[in-house]
């Protein structure tokens, strides 16, 4: 039986590739030259390739914290590649890659230190093809992508707004998108993420009574933080469309919602069963 060399791919392979891409992007800001960008993109593409191979070969479960974080990092890595090509003049990678690297790092830590589930107790009515479980996972993952994009856009917005407030020269510092573009990006990410999160939570709520310990499930960190995230979203949307709070304050709340998301994804799933790795 032949073993594919891709089976040797680990977190370190793509994590370090992203790190190299990030460092090269930083170098491009200090010493502007086309070579840095190309080299950075090569490392970025290599990282995405390695991570894709890892995901295909190892198929980490979406419900496991390390698996969901890894999948989220992968989607954001694709988002980084798109942005780097599409917004060639902006320091896109400088903002997205640290999030990707952070998620990969967190996923690695959780994969090596947390008790690993040996399986998921799937309710009988959905057990056939684990259909609803998968729907729930995908919806939450897509909502997480929205929250992450909103986080990156908010971070850039706050920095850009700070530069304008302090009246920095337009060409000084990290090149960023306009306030208007960042605000639109943030708004769209949240507008798309909220219905996805709501639908994901609804499906999850329907699955919950079929879990192993119904009472404890409701009080698990994952459920509480996800519900908290949903509430923050609700507040965000109300502040934006109901009270018309200035974008800067909304950006701060968006960043807070990303922190809640990390907590929700990092917490172990109530359906997880089994021993320690």
């Amino acid at each position: 039986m032949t073993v594919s060399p891709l089976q040797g791919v680990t977190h370190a392979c793509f994590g370090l590739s992203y790190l190299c891409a990030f460092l090269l992007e930083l170098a491009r800001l200090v010493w502007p030259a086309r070579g840095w960008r190309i080299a950075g993109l090569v490392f970025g593409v290599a990282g995405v390739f390695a991570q894709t191979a890892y995901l295909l070969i190892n198929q980490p479960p979406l419900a496991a914290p390390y698996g969901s974080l890894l999948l989220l990092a992968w989607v954001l890595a694709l988002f980084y590649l798109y942005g780097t090509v599409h917004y060639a003049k902006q320091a896109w990678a400088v903002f997205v890659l640290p999030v990707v690297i952070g998620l990969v790092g967190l996923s690695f830590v959780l994969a090596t230190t947390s008790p690993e589930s040996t399986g998921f107790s799937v309710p009988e009515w959905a057990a056939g093809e684990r259909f609803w479980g998968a729907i729930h996972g995908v919806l939450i993952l897509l909502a997480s992508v929205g929250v992450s994009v909103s986080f990156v856009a908010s971070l850039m917005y706050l920095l850009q707004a700070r530069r304008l407030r302090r009246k920095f020269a337009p060409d000084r510092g990290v090149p960023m998108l306009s306030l208007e573009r960042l605000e639109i990006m943030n708004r769209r990410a949240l507008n798309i993420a909220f219905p996805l999160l709501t639908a994901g939570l609804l499906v999850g709520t329907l699955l919950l009574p079929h879990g192993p310990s119904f009472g404890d499930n409701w009080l698990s960190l994952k459920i509480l933080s996800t519900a908290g995230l949903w509430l923050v979203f609700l507040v965000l949307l109300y502040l934006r469309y109901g009270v018309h709070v200035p974008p800067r304050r909304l950006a701060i709340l968006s960043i807070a919602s990303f922190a809640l998301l990390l907590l929700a994804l990092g917490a172990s799933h109530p359906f997880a069963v089994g021993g320690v790795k």
Partner: protein
Amino acid sequence: MNLRAIGCNVESATVELREKLAFDAIKTQKALAELNARFDAEAVVLGTCNRVEIYVARQETVAALHAPLMAEFLSEIHGVPADVIAPHLYEHADAEAVRHLFRVASGLDSVVLGETQIAGQVKDAYEAAHEATATGSRLNILFPTALKVSRRVRTETGISQGRVSVSSAAVDYVHQVFSTFTDKTVLVIGAGKMGRLTLNHLMELKPARILVTNRSPEKAIASAQTCGGQVVPWDNLDDALVQADIVLSSTGAPDHVVKRRQFDEKVRGRRATDRPLLIFDMAVPRDFDPRIHDGDTVTIFNIDDLSRVADERMAERRRHIPAAEAIIEAEVKKFVSDWNRRANGPVIGQLTAEVDKLRDATCGRLLTKLNGKLTDADKAEIEQAFRLFQSRLLHGPIAALQEASQEGHSGGLREALMKLFGLKG
């Protein structure tokens, strides 16, 4: 090399004199034709708002055209006394003229360091002269090379980086805040010069609407007509501010036109909070109370903020002067060396041909005298010996000429060789 760059610029002549010496298309054609016919000189006339320069190249064997003679010539063309012109003219000769043109084309000699417009003006001046058949083998090499050097300097250094005018700094700030402009409203308050200049830049972004307001309705109408804007009565200023996305203010008012309280009560609350307002207050004294600036929904830049950006960018450009000068120096050296090598070519060719003829005659006579006494191998040996002698004889002078051309001063040696060997120019 018999090349001269003669003229005046902002440093050597007042704007009044430069205006009098300005070349329009007709005067340019006349000057080029005259220089060609009268002095048998290739010529290019470069006239911009900051300089009037004439580049002339003649054969090396004739006298150069100097500044006093050019003052007389300019006097004839423009009807300004030569003694008024002469003190303001500078003259750059040969390699110095090449260096000057390279610096001019690269924007190193411009009032706004690194400006790119000058390269286009040099190109236009050359093309006009070329079309008038006023250029020849010398200037047809010099000017295209100057344009190539200009491109190299701008590409390899940051001498033309960023936009250095106050109004372009304002436009750059607009790009920091907005990404689309076709749905934006620009409000112009007052009719100050800086406001108008900035508006010209902003109009290139094609905003949806331009509103114009002024204390004087006549001035408002006049301003609106020039920019295709819509007049707003001065009393409706607050309403106009509610509608605006970008404000250009440059009134001559002695006090704030928009006070903080007035803005907070009548404008801020009526605007959507996610609609940023960017205000360029270019008036001195300022038109907007600076406390209106919150850096979130309302951002104000005054004339000092914009000037500071322009100054910073200019300082950044200045940092690239040594690198640009180094490129120009290397290019001048290469150009002069190539120029001399090209000038040496015909002389070396003529010299070799003359000595060839001499050798053939001498060798032919000898072989005729010894006819019948020599084998074919002997004849070949003798011919080879003559060739070797010729080659050794000419090696020294040709090598010296090439060496002098690399050092940029082969003219004297070339003339000496022509005299010594009786060559025709």
